[in-house]
Each structure stands twice: as C-alpha cells, then as structure tokens.
C-alpha cells in the first residue's frame, strides 16, 4: 500500500525526481573525474575516462526511474509518450484517423447501447433468474373464452386460486396486461397524463423490490375491491414530477377516487416491461375505480392479467412447468363446472402455460426491434471494418514515409518487437482517442436512436445511458479495431531491407507489397460498401412499398383525438352515450371539420377479436379459429370519416338507437367467409360471448351494409373478417378515440384549439389525453421498418463516404509516388487525356474488383434479411444495380480528383526531383 502511494507520488513529481537524479549523477561523475585527475591524468582524459567508467548516464537515469514504475507500465508509458509526440507532429493525420474511428466506434456503441437496453440488460429485481412469466406475455387486453392452447392472459380468480394451490413458486404476482394512461390530478393541480400499472399486493414481494421512501404495496393493500386507495410512485416519476421533494402522503385523484402515495420504489426499477415506464403502481383491487370502462375482477372469464412467479429454490424448471399445468387444468375444469360440454373439456386439455424466464422482462418493443437491431449491429460492424481499412491504409502510407526512421532505429539495435510495440502503442493511442470521442458521439446518438424507434406520439422510455456493459463493449471494439488496423502495418513496416532504406532518403522506395496490400484494403472497402448500399436500397424500397399498401381508408386529413371519460367520472351507460353523440355533433360543426366519429379502435390501437360467430343455417367449423373476426364499436359517422366505402346497403345512422333492431355493417371478407355470399344484406348473426353470457345485445344482429375491406391493426396484416356495431346499441366499453376529418386547407394550428373548445362546451371536465393524425398512426405501425430503412441508409452513406476517402487516399498516394513516371510520360508527349485515362483505368479496375466481390456478398447476406423485406426479394435486380452504379460513380469521382492532379504534373519539376 505504502509502495503504491510512493509510486503514485513519484508519477506526479516526475520532473523533480529526474532533476534530482541528474544532479546526483553529475555530482558522482565530477568526483570520479577529480579522482582520476588526482592520479595524474589530464583534465580531458579524466573527463572521458570518468564517463567511460560509469556507463551511460541516460541508461542509469532510465533504469533508476523504472524502479518506481511497474516495468510494463514504464515501457508502456514511454511508448505512449513517444506515440503522442509523433501524432502531435502530424495533426492532420491524427485528426482524420481519430474522426474516422470515432464515427465507426460511435455508431457501434450507439446501436449496442440500444441492444443492451432492449435485449440484454437484466431487470433491476432481486435474483431475477428465479422469475418466470406465465406464457409469452405478448398478448395484452382481455379474452373472454375458455383457454384452448398456450395461454398468457389470466383472470383474477385464477390468480388467487393458483397462488393458494401452487407448490412450486415462492410467490406469484399479477399485473394488468394493459398500462392505464389515465388523466389524473396531483395534489389538486390540473389534469395530467399518469401511467398507472395495476398490480397484485404480492407484486413487490415476488420481485424483491423495495421502497427508497415509505413502503411498497403488500397483500393487505389488495384485499377488498375498491377499498385500497393507495399508490406507490416510481423513482423516475417522483424525480420528474416532484423534483425529488417529499411526496409521502400526497394525494393523486384518478376518476372519482383520491389515492395516497405511500412509497417510492428503488431507483432503477420501472416495472417488468422494457419500454414502458409506469408512474404509479395501484392495487388491482382498485381496477374498477382506475378503469371504469374496462374491468372485471369478479368475472372468471375476464382474463386480462399477466402473471409472474418466483420459483422456490431447488425446484427445477421442468418440475415447475408440469406442476403449473396440472393446477391450471384442474382450476379451469372447476370454473367450467357442471355445464362442461365434451368440447370444453377437450379445450381444457389443450390449454397450457409455458413458463418463460423473466430475468430480462417482457417487451413488445423488443419483439419488434430485435431482428432490425441485429441487422443494424451487423451493418455498423461492417462500417467499422471499412473505417479500419481506411486507418490501416493511412498507417501504411505513413509507415513507408517512416521507413528511414524505422531503419535507423533498427540499425541502432532496436528489436523488431520493440518497434512493433511502439507502433502498436501509437495505434492504441489513436484507437483510444477515437473510442473516447466515439463514446461521446454515441451517447448523443443513442438518444436520437430512441427517437427513431419510437412512435410519433411519445418516445419509448428506454434507459440508454451507457452502463458497464456499454463501456466494456466500447473497450472491446476499440481493442479489436486497434489490432485490425494497427497490426498489419506495424509488421509490414518492420519487415524491411535496411541498407536501401537507409541509403536512399526513402523518397520513392515503396515496397510493392505495401501498395498491393492497400489496394486490397480499398477493394474490400468497396465490396462492403456495395453490400451495405444494396441493403439500404432494399430496405428503403420495401418500406416505400409498405407505405403504398392500400389501407382501405383515407389516412389524409384525419385527426385522432383520445379522451378519458373515466377521469371525468363517466360510467359505461346512457349518460356516456349521450355525451359521445353530442361531442360528435358539436365537433362536426367546427368550421373546417367535415365529420367526427368515435370508435373503440381506430388504427394501430390494438383490437378486439372473436371467432364465436353463429349464423343461422351455418355450422361453426373448427377452421373458424384462424380467421378471427375483428369487432369494432363505432359512432354512426365513423366509417364516413375514415372514408371506408359502403359497397351495398347502408351505413350506420341516427335511426340505430338502443331501442331499434340490432344492426351491424360487415366487411367483404366477413360476407365471403362467414355468409358465403358477397352481399348478405338482411341476414342475421349472433356473437357468443363466454365473458358475459347474460348479455343479449349480441343476439340476432341484422346485416344492413357491406363495407370495403380495410386494415385495422397494422399495415402488414392479412385481410380479416370485420364487424362494425353502432355504439348507440352497445354500451359496454368506453369509446375513447375520436376520428375527425377536416378540409385539406384547414390549418391544424387553428383547428385543434377550436376542437378543444367544442369538446369543452359539451363537458368542460372531459380531458383530452392525446392528439395525433391518422397518417401518424399508420406510420407508427411500421416504425421498425422505417427505422431499419432510415438507419441503414445513413450507415450506407457513411460507408460510401469512408470508402471514397479510401479510394481517394490510395490513388492520391500512388500518384505522388509515381510523379517521376508521369513526368516522363508527359515529357515524352503523353496528353492529359492519356494520363487521366491511365489513372482512372486503375481506379476503375480496383472499383470493379471491389464491386464484384460486393455483389457476391450482397447476394449471400441477402438471405439473412428476407424476413425484413416486403414485396421484393433480396435479389431484387434494381436494388443491386443501383448499388453497383452508385459505387462505381463514387469510385470514379474519388479517383478523378487525384487523377486531375496527375495531369497537371510539370515534367520539369518532376524530373528535377529525381
């Protein structure tokens, strides 16, 4: 310890130390000389003899100094100091190199930090390896039918019973599969959006997450429906909303109830979903209060919960798996009870729960982006390779400029390894500076990346701040890079023939090996660039094909406005229906608005599907299952607003009231598949619903119109049967999305305030939670495709820029080296045209070789991206041709500039230089 301190002090006081030691050595030498003089030698003789006797003072100084440093550090420090001096002497070279590396490493770090945040980082929970999700947890919302396959949504009844009966889990927690974005008031302030996650009282205990202030929820907070108005705040919301001020006991009003904040969770914890960040956790017992439009704790068939359990220590996953399914099927059989048909019993035997490791949490964003990000990681890896080739080329060029220096040092006895190490130290310095700068780039870029992967309305809450994993990645990338670009030139530079290198000032001697090597590097760059451009073009074209898919509705000039009726105290009843109708009417009267209609789902907002449709005269076939029917409840103007054409019959209208006969509009697909005729007007159907079997509103519904097929959830979905019910006849859920069609000329800046006023006239307390446009929703549904297209284009461009720098550099260097040759050619009468043709011909050959390899690479790599392409194959000739042509053009341009210089060589000057 003391030694360490001494060594460190020495490091800090090096200058003083060296001065002292030099003085001491000089004193020693003076006395020695005195001694020799005393013995009768002359002064000069004595001075030499003293020096000879004592050996090199520089060596003594060096070795004395080394005692204080760890030996490897001492050498390293010397190498690096020397390297720094060399780089400082060539600032242009250093700058270009460091910037190139920073771009390459920065791009890699940025993509990696996203991958890390989304796919690699474990949740900040206690011993996450023991946690298991029940099923994939990819489905959200609720289902109302008896499970008949792999299941992931469960009822509250099942959760309680399973928790009681299970023997393999220490504890099990339930989480509402939907994050409730509610409008609440904090301590009496105005409405603001608060993300509420409803969880069972066992949630925090199961995950092993504690409170940084106050307490977390426990079983006693989740006993009686409606009786536990308490909430736990997330650390990040506490910081954001309260600036970290004391918050315990604060009141948050949501809907008709006021919740007391009883605690704040530990810092990094933000729930089990990566890419979602709840502000408050509220006991599931308060479901009806938080979500008046969608709830059903007491209903065995309202299956809306995700479950996560902590395995008991020593229980193997296989044991847990089978034990869980035994309990699951037994409980399901109990629920179905005496009325169980053989069909239901068979369903239950097919029902299963797959236990999925929950260490990394669940994430919809991960699902959407894991393959795009993997591809982008490969893309930036290739960009880094291209950058390495550039730097290696620069180092090669410099190495031949330094041949003389290396030759001098080697002839003075410096070992080859010593010089290689020295050159590697220089590379390390370059690499480290590049990585450092790249790291800075990346922290800026990763925030941009989050924006690219986010929808238009709000950014995905992802923690992309660099952590240890990212740091380690950058360090690893740096070391790999240094080895890649540094090793070859270093070995190359020391493999030289000393005599000619020393004799001749190193002006024109360049080993042919070097030139060949750098041309291979450039050809490699061209090849990788071609592959990257081809990929970018493929992604861009497939994205534009997706964007030109016919949605079946007209996405232009439609605003989509979300309201929160629950926050304004509405229940699902007649009063609510009347309010909706008035809002539709009032908004439609706003100048510039053509029409307004509510819908349960507009587009890309999820959906509700069933396959339990009964049509008189048709037997339900088991094949109905894959063709699930999309249900929507809409305001009477909605289909007009969306411009979904009615092909036959009529649309929904004012005549369809709660007391009039039940009607619906179906789409073409529904007509074809379920009714077996294109226009089944006047025919009836019923919807069987396990969830609310008592409900009569789905019986004997008459088809009054057939609408054109339209997309409902994503751009890429297949056409599905769909039914639109008038909301006047179906009070069951809140319809909270209002679609508003406006004139193309209406400025959204004035339109939105007018619409807000119109809504406020109907009910001043009805909060508007978000506003967006229909075309934004369409874009959002393919945000991962857009991200891949945009980012691969950016990186493809970067690759091309780097490759063109490479071509420019190697051509330019070749011309400098061959100044004499060109001088002679011009002196002998070569025309500019001839010189230009000569140089460009070489560049073209280089480019052609690279392009050929790149084409092969693109064809091979293309197979890996097939899943991300739409409407074209990876062998799309136009994309490949575009890449080839673009690269050849860039190569010729990059070669043209130095070639032009070659034509301007003055033969006299060139020959004089010889």
């Amino acid at each position, binding site marked *: 310890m*003391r*030694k360490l301190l*001494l*060594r460190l002090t020495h490091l800090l006081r090096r200058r003083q130390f060296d001065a*002292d*030691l030099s*003085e*001491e*050595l000089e*004193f*020693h*030498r*003076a*006395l*020695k000389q005195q001694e020799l003089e005393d013995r009768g030698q002359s002064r000069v003789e004595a001075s030499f003899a003293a020096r000879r*006797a*004592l*050996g*090199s*003072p520089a*060596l*003594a*100084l060096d*070795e*004395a*100094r*080394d*005692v*204080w440093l760890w030996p490897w550090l001492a050498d390293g420090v010397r190498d690096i100091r020397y390297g720094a001096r060399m780089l400082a002497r060539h600032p242009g070279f250093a700058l270009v190199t460091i910037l190139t590396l920073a771009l390459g490493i920065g791009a890699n770090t940025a993509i990696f930090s996203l991958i890390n945040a989304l796919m690699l980082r474990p949740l900040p929970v206690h011993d996450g390896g023991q946690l298991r999700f029940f099923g994939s947890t990819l489905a959200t919302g609720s289902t109302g039918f008896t499970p008949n396959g792999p299941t992931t949504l469960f009822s509250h009844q099942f959760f309680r019973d399973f928790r009681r009966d299970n023997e393999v889990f220490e504890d099990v927690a339930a989480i509402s599969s939907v994050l409730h974005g509610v409008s609440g008031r904090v301590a009496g302030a105005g409405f603001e959006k608060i993300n509420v996650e409803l969880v069972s009282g066992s949630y925090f205990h199961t995950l092993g997450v504690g409170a940084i202030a106050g307490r977390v929820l426990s079983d006693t907070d989740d006993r009686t429906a409606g009786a536990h108005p308490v909430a736990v705040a997330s650390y990040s919301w506490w910081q954001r909303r309260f600036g970290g001020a004391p918050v315990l006991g604060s009141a948050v009003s949501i809907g008709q109830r006021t919740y007391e904040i009883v605690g704040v969770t530990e810092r990094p914890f933000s729930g089990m979903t990566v890419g979602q960040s709840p502000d408050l956790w509220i006991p599931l017992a308060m479901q009806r209060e938080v979500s008046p439009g969608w709830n059903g704790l007491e209903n065995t068939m309202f299956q809306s919960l995700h479950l996560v359990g902590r395995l008991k220590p020593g229980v193997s996953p296989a044991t847990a798996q089978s034990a869980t399914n035994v309990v699951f099927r037994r409980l399901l059989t109990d629920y179905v009870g005496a009325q169980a048909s053989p069909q239901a019993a068979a369903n239950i035997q097919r029902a299963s729960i797959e236990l999925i490791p929950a260490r990394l949490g669940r994430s919809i964003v991960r699902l959407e982006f894991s393959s795009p990000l993997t591809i982008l990681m490969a893309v930036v890896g290739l960009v880094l390779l291209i950058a390495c080739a550039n730097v290696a080329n620069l180092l090669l060029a410099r190495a031949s400029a330094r041949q003389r220096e290396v030759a001098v040092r080697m002839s003075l006895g410096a070992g080859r390894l010593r010089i290689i190490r020295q050159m590697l130290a220089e590379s390390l310095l370059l690499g480290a500076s590049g990585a450092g700068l790249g790291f800075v780039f990346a922290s800026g870029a990763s925030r941009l990346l989050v924006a690219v992967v986010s929808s238009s309305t709000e950014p995905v809450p992802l923690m992309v701040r660099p952590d240890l994993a990212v740091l380690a990645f950058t360090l690893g990338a740096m070391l790999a890079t240094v080895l890649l670009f540094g090793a070859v030139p270093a070995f190359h530079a020391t493999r030289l023939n000393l005599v000619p290198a020393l004799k001749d000032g190193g002006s024109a001697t360049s080993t042919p090996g070097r030139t060949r090597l750098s041309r291979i590097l450039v050809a490699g760059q061209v090849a990788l660039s071609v592959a990257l451009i081809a990929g970018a073009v493929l992604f861009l074209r497939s994205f534009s094909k997706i964007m030109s898919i016919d949605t079946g509705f007209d996405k232009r000039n439609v605003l989509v406005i979300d309201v929160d009726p629950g926050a304004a105290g509405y229940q699902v009843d007649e009063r609510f229906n009347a309010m909706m109708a008035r809002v539709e009417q009032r908004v439609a009267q706003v100048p510039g608005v053509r029409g307004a209609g509510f819908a349960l789902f507009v587009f890309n907002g999820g959906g509700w599907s069933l396959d339990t449709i009964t049509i008189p005269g048709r037997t339900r076939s088991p094949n109905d299952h894959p063709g699930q029917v999309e249900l929507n409840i809409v305001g009477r103007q909605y289909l007009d607003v969306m411009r979904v054409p009615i092909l036959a019959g009529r649309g929904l209208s004012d005549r369809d009231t709660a007391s009039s006969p039940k009607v619906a509009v179906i789409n073409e697909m529904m007509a074809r598949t379920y009714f077996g005729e294109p226009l089944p007007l006047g025919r009836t159907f019923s919807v069987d619903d396990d969830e609310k079997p008592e409900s009569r509103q789905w019986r004997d519904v008459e088809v009054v119109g057939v609408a054109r097929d339209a997309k409902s959830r994503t751009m890429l979905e297949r056409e599905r049967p769909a039914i639109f019910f008038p909301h006047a006849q179906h009070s069951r859920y809140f319809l909270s999305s209002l679609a508003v069609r406006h004139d193309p000329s209406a400025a959204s800046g004035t339109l939105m305030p007018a619409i807000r006023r119109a809504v406020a006239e109907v009910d001043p307390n009805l909060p508007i939670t978000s506003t967006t446009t229909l075309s934004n929703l369409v874009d959002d549904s393919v945000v991962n495709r857009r991200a891949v297209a945009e980012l691969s284009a950016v990186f493809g461009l970067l690759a091309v820029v780097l490759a063109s720098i490479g071509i420019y550099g190697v051509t330019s260097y070749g011309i400098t080296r061959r100044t004499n040759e060109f001088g002679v050619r011009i002196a002998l009468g070569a025309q500019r045209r001839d010189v230009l043709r000569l140089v460009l011909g070489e560049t073209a050959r280089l480019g052609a070789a690279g392009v050929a390899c790149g084409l092969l690479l693109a064809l091979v790599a293309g197979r890996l991206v097939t899943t991300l392409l739409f409407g074209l194959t990876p062998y799309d000739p136009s994309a490949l041709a575009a890449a080839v042509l673009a690269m050849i053009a860039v190569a010729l341009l990059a070669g043209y500039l130095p070639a032009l210089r070659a034509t301007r060589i003055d033969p006299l000057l060139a020959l004089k230089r010889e």
Partner: protein
Amino acid sequence: MGREIPDLLPGTLELLILKTLGRGPMHGYAIAQRLRELSDDVLQVGESSLYPALQRLLLKNWVKAEWGASENNRRARYYTLTPTGRKQMAVERQDFDHLIFAIQKVLNAT
C-alpha cells in the same frame, strides 16, 4: 579490472549498500568508493547499477535520502539507513550466508 556488481547474485548489491551505510550517511559516490576500497578494487559499481539499486531501497523504505553539503561544499544526496533497513540488513545477511554456504556445499561435493 574488477567485477561489475550486477554479475553477482541478485540482491547482493543492495545488501552491500546496506552494509556500507551501516557506518553512517553517505552519498552515492562515497558508497561506490567504499565498496571498491573494502573489496580491494575487486568490486566496481557503475552509476547504471548503483542508482537503480538505491531507488529500489528507497521504494522499500530501507534507506532514506536527504540533500546535504559534501566535503567540498557541493550539493549531494545523502542516504541513511532506516530502522527497517537496519533490521532487514540482518535478515538479508542471514539469507546471503545461507546461500553462499549452500553454493559452497555444492562446489565442494565430490
């Protein structure tokens, strides 16, 4: 011509320096002189081994160094044995004796 000290067993030079300093503070040149005299000119020590050895001793805290005035009034760095150094000298001495004894045994074996 005498022997350069680094040819000896490792650590020997340090031991000899400690022994020399046992008589009191000395500067580097005086240490070299003293070693030569005591060994009848057999042991020659150059700057390039003496000063690194002194640095090693400093680092181990067996000696300490202070600037003072020399006989002819020049600034010189004087090295003094620390209490640890004095103790260590005995230990090192014993080790060294053991080692020499062992070497002798090997060489004398028939």
